[in-house]
């Protein structure tokens, strides 16, 4: 009577083991699928974190530095014109107008070819608070003439200050 009991017990335990195997397999497959999703999410978050670092170190500080109120932007442009008018023979082509988050002013310039220092100065114009975009540059025997656009980033009314 003992042996049939042991046999039955063996088969019952075997069936239990088989069901465990199936359960483990099923659950492992679910876990693997979940892990795969988590890993993709982690990769995305790492990318986001990387972009955040770049934004925080390179973009946001620049925006903070450059952004000013619209009125202040106008003043800055006017100030720039007044300061450089004589040096580069500036002439207002297009008075202050709005761009995308910028206040712009289009100026034409005229420098003697022989005044290389001024020419280099003009070509190397850099400013932390504004952008310069050459639109035209013509160099002939005596004169260097052209058009430059000065862009002053400024806040739009809708933008929340950072």
């Amino acid at each position: 009577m003992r042996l049939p009991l042991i046999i039955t017990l063996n088969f019952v335990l075997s069936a239990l083991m088989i069901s465990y195997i199936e359960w483990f397999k099923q659950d492992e497959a679910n876990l693997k699928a979940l892990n795969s999703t988590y890993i993709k999410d982690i990769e995305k978050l790492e990318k986001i974190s990387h972009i955040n670092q770049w934004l925080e170190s390179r973009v946001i500080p620049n925006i903070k530095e450059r952004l000013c109120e619209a009125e202040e932007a106008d003043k800055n442009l006017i100030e720039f014109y007044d300061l450089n008018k004589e040096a580069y023979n500036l002439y207002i082509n297009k008075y202050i107008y709005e761009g995308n988050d910028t206040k712009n002013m289009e100026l034409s310039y005229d420098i003697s070819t022989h005044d290389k220092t001024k020419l280099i100065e003009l070509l190397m114009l850099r400013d932390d608070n504004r952008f310069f975009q050459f639109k035209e540059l013509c160099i002939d025997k005596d004169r260097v003439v052209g058009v430059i656009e000065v862009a002053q980033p400024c806040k739009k009314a809708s933008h929340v200050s950072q």
Partner: protein
Amino acid sequence: MNRFYSISIQNDDVCILAVQSKNNIFSVETQQYIKLSELSQFLKNKTSYYVTFAQEEAVDEKILIESAIKNDHVIRRIILGKIFESCATKKLLFNYCPISELKNGSKITYQVDGVYEDEYLHSLKKVDNWSQIKSATINKFALFGISCECIKENSYFSIHTFDNKIIIIVIHDNTLIFSREHTIAIDNLEERKKILIEEITQTIAYVQQHFREIEFSLIALSGSLSADDDILEHIYILSGLGVCVLYPNTFIRGLENEEPQSHMVSLGSWFVPKKYQFYPTSILGLNQYGFAIKVLLGFSAAVFFITSFFAYKQYDSYSKTLQNHEVVKSRLAQLTQDTKIYSDEDLSHYIQHIQIVQKYMQYHPIDPLIAIRPLVELQKPQNIAWEHFDEFMRLNAVFKRSFHTLEALYQFEKLFFNSLQTLSGTLYATYQNKTNYATLDFEITVTIQNMKQPTNSKELPRKRR
């Protein structure tokens, strides 16, 4: 090491030997005599029985059957039919085997040995647990078993006496070809001895007469007569055959000196070949059931171990995945906590700013001027015009020079075009050649732009050699 019980049931008396076996060496641990009525009580909780009975009546027939008949079932039915014709109508348990020497033309003589089922079962019923019976037979076959184990001759007699009984068996080619059991009920020792010798010698003479073609070599004695030298001498003189005594002490231990002689039938019980064991159907069923149970036990144990092994492997793999999951989950939680998520509005603001920066930093007249530096080093351009609007940028540079000889113009052009060829980068360079070879005035307008546009001007020339 196996332990089993050899049970010899002689009418109401039972002799039980408890035996241990290891590597074909048997050791009798205990010997016990009990009454038949006490047997079932004695065997409680004991396993592996080898049983032998004293049965006066047994079937010992030689039956001729056509050699063409080979089917066991048919042979058994023919044997049963012939036995019922000749003697009894009692139920039989029997085994048969062909006697090769007695082939008779197209027929084969079968030696049939059997017991009467009712009497046999009457004795066997005293053993309660039939599933533990490993072998069941009657005395003469037990004697056959021990004789075959002790004597390696081909044809011989084996004679055993105990109490007032005498068993004579004739063995040829490991087959029992003749047997006789007789009871001598005489108390006078001399008279008894005389009759015993007579009985033996007459039987030997009969067998030798009946089986003329067999040459017998030996008479093996055992039991009470083996100790009597007079009988041995008489048998030797009268039969003319060598006489020996069965002496199983070499492979059966635990019995001193002549002790095995009184247990010869019990000792032979576990050497009985299958063909001389008689099982009722129920024992066979029980044995088959026992065998099936053991096979099933082995199989179930194997299945259990295999499934356990795979379950363990699966669990191991699962726990590793679970650990990995915990690590990934905590890493994700940490990153989710640490990563700042900007609002869409902020992000679109930053993107707009980046676009502004890109727009104002993308094109600058310095870039194409640096690009044409090799040409400028050869000839200062007469005028340069650079313009940019939206995504388009273009630089026109006019190079003029007058020469006195065509050779000088040729050499200069060669250098100029070589330099023009080396202009690299993402800018497209084309030129318009307006050189007047009559007046030797070199004039080329080089155009550099950021994207290909259909122009009338030529593409860059092939390198001049």
